[in-house]
């Protein structure tokens, strides 16, 4: 029997991914969600250090891993993710790959 590739049957939209990242970052950094925009730089705008980014990665893997079997974030790619927009694009691409 083929494995389920995602639990609820529909892929997350780009806006939904942004919403999730904003929510998680706001929790991790103890800031208002309004401060997190696509253009926000993790280090310069949000003061997110390496630990905060790893917290975000772990949270996203937990949230999205439940919806999409096989969703992971490659640690080697983290250095390239400088803005929230970069992270959204990356997660959307990884989700598409996992669902592929």
């Amino acid at each position, binding site marked *: 029997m083929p494995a389920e590739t995602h639990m609820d049957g529909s892929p997350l939209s780009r806006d939904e991914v942004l919403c999730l990242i904003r929510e998680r970052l706001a*929790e*991790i*950094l*103890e800031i208002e969600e309004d401060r997190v925009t696509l253009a926000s730089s993790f280090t310069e705008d949000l*003061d997110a*250090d*390496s*630990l905060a980014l*790893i*917290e975000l*990665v*772990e949270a996203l893997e937990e949230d999205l891993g439940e919806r999409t079997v096989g969703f992971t974030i490659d*640690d080697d790619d983290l250095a390239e993710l400088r803005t929230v927009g970069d992270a959204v694009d990356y997660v959307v691409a990884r989700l598409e790959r996992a669902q592929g």
Partner: protein
Amino acid sequence: MSAATVASGRGKTPTTRVTVAIDAMGGDKAPDEIVSGALQAVEELDDVAVLLAGPEEAIAPLLPGRARDGVELVPAAEIVAMDEEPAVAVRTKRDSSLVRAAQAVREGRAQALVGAGNTGATMAAALLKMGRIRGIARPAIAVPIPVPGARPQLLVDAGSTVDCTAEWLVQFARMGREYARTRLGVAEPTVGLLSNGEEPGKGDELRKEVFPLLEKVDGFTGNVEGRDFMHGGVDVIVTDGFTGNVALKSIEGALRAAVSLVFGVLESTPDAREAGKVLVPLLLDAAGALDPDETGGATLLGVAGVCVISHGSSSARAIANAVGLAADCVRADVVGRLREAVDAG
């Protein structure tokens, strides 16, 4: 929490069994002293069980020949070294003894984590696996500082968060105050900001920025200086993790030097050696309160679970005491009390 209430057959008040997950491979004396300390804890403490995380081939030979109630091995093939970058190590070594132990708490198989290894990694494992208390941006290590003849002071943060914001220091103050209330039995703990002078305007930019914010925290008495350690004038001393760790290590070094000086004098002449026969037992007894092995470790405040971080050179005695401290914190619902204090703040 998977603890069960157990009525002791010795007619005591029922206690809640607490299971403590231990990184059996963390620390200079691991695994021998860590396992020995864990076994002592199970033997001496009421209703405490331990999960020992580490490679089976390293841990099993150290366990008693027969299976013992309250001792369980959690297999883990990897070890986080003392010099590894903490968050990266926790993320990449998912089969390490440290991560397996933290995972056991996350999954409810244990209620507390004890580790004597890489401090930053232990903090990261607790944060990533147990989560944070909502409202707390960064955890802080609370270390009891002995005060001769009086209850200890608390130093917060003793090294968890090196670079702090003013808001984080305020959070440390609130958590430290509640922890002093819960663990030290102080009804209305006082809080001092460690600085380079008592006057309100003293300090670097961070101290100057946080001072007016701390004035809104109940119990805040103002700036304190390094010489206020071990004197009992204030219950909680708040600072950033870098300064706190430097202060802590300075105190440890000064105490070792003072002890060495005293015992050197008592060995210096025949008359001194005679006097030493009377004084040494008294001094050793008094010095017991200054021995970090008697405390067992420091509590990590701000994570959504109990985590005790022990010194890297912890002996079996220290680990046994760390397990006891962890169990006490679980039973006192330290995490719940901190949550309430943060919500109220």
